[in-house]
């Protein structure tokens, strides 16, 4: 733990819900939960040399950046629920929604049977070792895109537990995009269980959208494309197949893209919709109508030179009820809650963004604090 900042001064007025924190899902952690014969496979993978979020046959990540000394060596990870609770306490976070580390890239695994087995092992491991209402740690059931029928079963199974409050849709490397009709069982299950679906990408170089990112020499210029472009492509794909019209009660969350790309999507798609409405024959309204109802998590929150610009940005898409604080703890690019709290949003908007919106979205009771 390298962050021990004092709690925000407004702490007493606020519940802080962090909708994106990461657990370190190593092969050795998941091995006891995976079906035979993959137990032996994970035992073996556990012995292979590895780099940060980069394990052969498990977490695919073509790491092509020029390695510089003294950078990234101390990549943080969270190994136990107790450690997560302590870390989140230090960040003044009351409630955390858990996402994986390594399975962020699982959509790129070519073996669908293996991918589904890993997904089941992850869900079982979360249920057994991580989620806890008392600790304010809640899970998102991973929906393995390679096996939508199995994913739907997993959603119904774990979604029945109070500690699972969402469905994680792996977004890096997903092919076809999430609007494809093969995923219908996943959206049906999520809607039936009343669980929001949460898209989350990661820095992956892979022959699925957004591809060709190996042309960038550095993560500096590649990283925003790997997140925001992936979210945008999947959002467009889901609008194209009218997911929000067909599943009007399904809540859809876009994580780790910040918020400044949102007005672009609304205005650009509405512009196209003038000309091509008949090509979106199942949308009952212009695209912006649906986008305004999507949810967006803050990290990586934009840090404009004029902080007021971020307030304007939020207003452009009526985001006060739709934006959710996220830190992305413990990843290299995490945001301290203070970064969002210090933005010049009105006090009521801050309370919504920092926690109230997420409590309502996920149906979580406000935690009762000791003292």
């Amino acid at each position, binding site marked *: 733990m390298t962050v021990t900042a004092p709690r925000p001064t407004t702490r007493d007025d606020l519940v802080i819900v962090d909708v994106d924190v990461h657990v370190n899902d190593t092969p050795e952690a998941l091995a006891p939960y995976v079906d035979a014969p993959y137990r032996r496979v994970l035992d073996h993978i556990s012995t292979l040399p590895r780099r940060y979020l980069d394990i052969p046959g498990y977490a695919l990540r073509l790491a092509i950046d020029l390695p510089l000394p003294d950078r990234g060596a101390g990549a943080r990870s969270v190994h136990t629920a107790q450690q997560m609770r302590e870390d989140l306490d230090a960040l003044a976070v009351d409630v955390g929604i858990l996402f994986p580390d390594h399975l962020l890239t699982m959509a790129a695994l070519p073996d669908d049977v293996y991918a589904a087995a890993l997904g089941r092992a992850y869900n079982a491991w979360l249920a057994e070792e991580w989620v806890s209402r008392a600790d304010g740690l809640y899970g998102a059931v991973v929906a393995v895109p390679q096996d939508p029928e199995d994913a739907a079963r997993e959603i119904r199974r774990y979604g029945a537990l109070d500690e699972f409050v969402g469905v994680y849709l792996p977004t890096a490397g997903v092919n076809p995009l999430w609007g494809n009709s093969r995923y219908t069982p996943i959206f049906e299950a999520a809607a039936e269980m009343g669980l929001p679906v949460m898209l989350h990408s990661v820095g992956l170089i892979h022959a699925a959208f957004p591809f060709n990112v190996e042309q960038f020499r550095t993560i500096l210029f590649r990283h925003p494309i790997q997140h925001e472009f992936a979210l945008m492509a999947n959002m467009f794909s889901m609008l194209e197949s009218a997911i929000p019209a067909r599943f009007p009660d399904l809540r859809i969350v876009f994580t780790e893209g910040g918020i400044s790309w949102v007005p672009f999507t609304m205005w650009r798609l509405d512009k196209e919709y*003038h000309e091509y409405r008949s090509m979106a024959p199942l949308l009952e*309204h212009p695209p912006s109508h649906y986008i305004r109802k999507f949810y967006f998590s803050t990290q990586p929150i934009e840090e404009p030179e004029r902080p007021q610009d971020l307030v304007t940005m939020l207003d452009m898409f009526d985001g006060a009820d739709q934006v959710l604080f996220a830190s992305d703890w413990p990843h290299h690019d995490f945001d301290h809650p203070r970064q969002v709290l210090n933005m010049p949003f009105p006090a009521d908007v801050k309370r919504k963004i920092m926690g109230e919106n997420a409590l309502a979205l996920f149906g979580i009771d406000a935690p009762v604090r000791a003292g």
Partner: protein
Amino acid sequence: MARISAGPADALAPGERTFVKHRNFEIGVFNVNGNFRAYRNRCPHQLGPACEGAISGTLMGSADTDWQLEWVLDGRVLLCPWHQVEFDLDTGERIRGLGERLRSYTVEVDDGELYVVV
């Protein structure tokens, strides 16, 4: 209130249109499946000559069709020639839009003659 003659009603068959001038703009007069409609020839999008566009139908689906596509409103969809925005010729409303509409006028039939009330 003034009335502008748009010619004999029986000269305007279903699916056909004619234009009248009013001040410095035009009004399109349509026979929409037997009903007469009149709209200002100015699109609410970027002011294109909407009334000169193709008359067609369109694709749509909804919960009512179990999300199956249907070709609907045949002969009732006016496509603005500039950017193809679809208007329902029966009401002048943009189809599944944000509430935009063509400025509409009443059409009266008097002794076999069409009149646009402006």
